[in-house]
């Protein structure tokens, strides 16, 4: 018995690379307890502590960033440039979500500690996903995030559509997790390992990919990923959930988790199954074309801005997949750039809905934006910048994102795909520009002044101006993504 215990060789894992995760988990628990002793009047302390947690995590991630790839916890945790960059943007985006959400939640008696605690646990789930290097941690990170999201949608208990959205999200999310898990289990059965590195090495060996069961596994993994990303034909949950959830929760679901989902695709498809690139490339082409087509065309028919942005998300997911399916480093970097740009733009888009809303009134219909220029020229300009950027008009940031993925597709000798993408981008421009027309050329039906807090207005302005400034000078962000992707692909 003694011998048996002694024979277990155990090295204490290097916890340093995982310090940001440990910090966020600890702080989330601390905030949970502190919040218990706060009255509704002092609830702002929870809010400030949540922001401080994100700031602290950002400082930790930045100071631990070496640019080298470090594995820890027996290969189930990885810290590399992609993980660090994506984590940094996850903190940034979530901090903005928390700031945007504050006044909205106070006005609707939803300003509870649970929103922020679940939000922080969701951040932890995203961090785990971004840094996962084994099928086990990938799945656990995904579930941690998903569970927080389901609960956050359902938090608005008095609203019928929120409960419906939460139920739909939960059932479809569970189904997607099941499909992903099934694919993973077959992958484990064939390769005999949960470690992404081992799986990648197994599949890189010549002849190993010639296996029908492997195709089966890839198909299931891709269906699971497409569900989580919201690519057509697995997109049905997105419009209902975005519409049903309260706007700050929609903002949260729509922005940062897409960064984590991108990392998930990179870890599973590129790092784990690059040997099967020829097989998953075709599947991704179908998903991308369908997403761009359905997203852009159906968005035109939407009168509700939240639903319109939901379909716009589906279209953006199509463009995002374009870069990944090329299977080369520049393509991956273009996709990473696209997803970061998408997160910043979505933040602004849903942020504007929150800004125009007030207690008892949701500015979620297109008519609510009529004549915004008369009410607030500054924020009309911000919204115009965001819409131009989403439509892909130069020199705004969204143009460079589309440009980067299209360039990658053309370089991969798929000109027809680039042409299709541009055609759908032109169709998509219609519904973005329609909002600008409503804001500038239509008479205002509402004349109530905007009532948001100074912090919200300030961050909203920074958000809009960032889209403009980064659009004029995109090379820094592009270089950052290219550097982060240097270790991927050939």
């Amino acid at each position, binding site marked *: 018995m003694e011998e*048996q*215990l002694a024979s*277990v060789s*155990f090295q204490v*894992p290097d916890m340093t690379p*995982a310090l940001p995760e440990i910090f966020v*988990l600890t702080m989330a*628990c601390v905030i*949970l307890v502190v919040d218990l002793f706060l009255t509704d009047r002092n609830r702002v302390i929870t809010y400030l502590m949540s922001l401080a947690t994100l700031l602290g995590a950002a400082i930790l991630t930045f100071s631990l960033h070496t640019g080298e790839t470090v594995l*820890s*916890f*027996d290969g*189930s*945790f990885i810290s590399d440039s992609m993980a660090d960059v994506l984590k940094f943007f996850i903190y940034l985006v979530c901090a903005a979500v928390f700031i945007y959400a504050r006044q909205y939640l106070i006005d609707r008696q939803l300003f*509870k500690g*649970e929103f922020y*605690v*679940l939000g922080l*646990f969701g951040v*932890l789930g995203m961090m*785990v996903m971004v840094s996962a290097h*084994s099928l*086990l*941690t990938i799945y*656990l*990170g995904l*579930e*941690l995030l998903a*569970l*927080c999201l*389901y*609960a956050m949608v*359902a*938090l608005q*208990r008095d609203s019928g559509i929120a409960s419906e959205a939460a139920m739909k999200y939960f059932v479809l999310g569970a189904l997607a997790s099941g499909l992903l898990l099934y694919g993973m289990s*077959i992958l484990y*059965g064939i390769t005999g390992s949960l470690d992404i590195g081992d799986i990648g090495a197994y599949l890189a060996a010549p002849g190993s990919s010639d*296996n*029908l*069961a492997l195709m*089966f596994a890839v198909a299931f993994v891709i269906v699971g990923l497409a569900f989580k990303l919201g690519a057509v034909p697995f997109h049905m949950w997105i419009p209902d959930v975005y519409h049903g959830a309260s706007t700050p929760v929609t903002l949260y679901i729509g922005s940062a988790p897409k960064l984590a989902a991108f990392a998930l695709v990179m870890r599973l498809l590129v790092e784990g199954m690059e040997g099967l690139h020829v097989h998953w490339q075709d599947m991704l082409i179908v998903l991308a074309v369908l997403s761009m087509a359905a997203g852009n065309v159906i968005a035109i028919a939407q009168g509700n801005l939240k639903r319109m942005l939901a379909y716009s998300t589906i279209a953006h997911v199509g463009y995002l997949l374009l870069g990944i399916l090329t299977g080369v480093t520049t393509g991956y970097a273009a996709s990473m750039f696209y997803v970061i740009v998408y997160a910043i733009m979505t933040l602004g888009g849903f942020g504007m809905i929150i800004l125009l809303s007030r207690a008892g009134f949701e500015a979620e219909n297109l008519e609510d934006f009529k004549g915004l220029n008369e009410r607030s020229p500054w924020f009309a300009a911000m919204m115009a910048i965001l819409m131009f950027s989403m439509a892909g008009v130069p020199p705004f940031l969204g143009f460079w994102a589309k440009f980067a993925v299209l360039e990658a597709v053309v370089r991969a000798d798929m000109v027809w795909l680039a042409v299709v993408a541009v055609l759908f981008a032109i169709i998509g421009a219609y519904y973005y520009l329609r909002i600008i027309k409503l804001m500038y050329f239509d008479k205002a039906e509402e004349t109530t002044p905007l009532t948001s807090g100074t912090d919200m207005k300030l961050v909203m302005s920074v958000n809009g101006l960032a889209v403009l400034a980064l659009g004029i000078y995109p090379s820094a962000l592009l270089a950052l993504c290219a550097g982060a992707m240097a270790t991927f692909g050939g």
Partner: protein
Amino acid sequence: MNIEPIIFYFFSAILVAASAAVITVRNPVHAALSLVLAFFTSAIIWVLLEAEFLAITLVLVYVGAVMVLFLFVVMMLDINLVPLREGFIRYLPVGALVAIIMFVEMVIVVGSNRFGLDVFGAGMKHGPDYSNTKELGSVLYTVYVYPFEIAAAILLVAIIAAIALTMRRRPATKFQDPSKQVLVKRNERVRMVKMAAENKTTPNE
């Protein structure tokens, strides 16, 4: 004569029959009890696989806790099953056809010709002093400590979510406060009213 295959096929048959009963019997309580039987039988099959820790956990957690809770819920809810079964016969042919096609496809792709014993070989047999529990314990907190901690965080989130979604204060709800009941004074409950004596009234006046 090896007794293991006999045990395996005997309990597998019970497992399949119990699982079929879960979805076919009319009475929901019977269905839940069949599920208990299915869990219990699969625990026995797990013991055959030398996974005795998991087998006992299955009995303790699923049979002992989850299913008992489930039975309570089934007994408390008054579910009318007739509307749920509407259209069962009508959709049966299509549903059965799709199920059979999917089953055949999956057997072709991931059947025993790819994952069978001749491909992977039989698992190693262990001696009588082998402890599955100790083996699990020795890796759970070492090699798999990171996933283990994340799983703990998931459970914590589940608790937070469950409480946040179900706990609400209803001001209209009537409830008793025993400490207030004990501390109550006489003059809070009984009001002494002083009034002048009245004349006796007679009905025949």
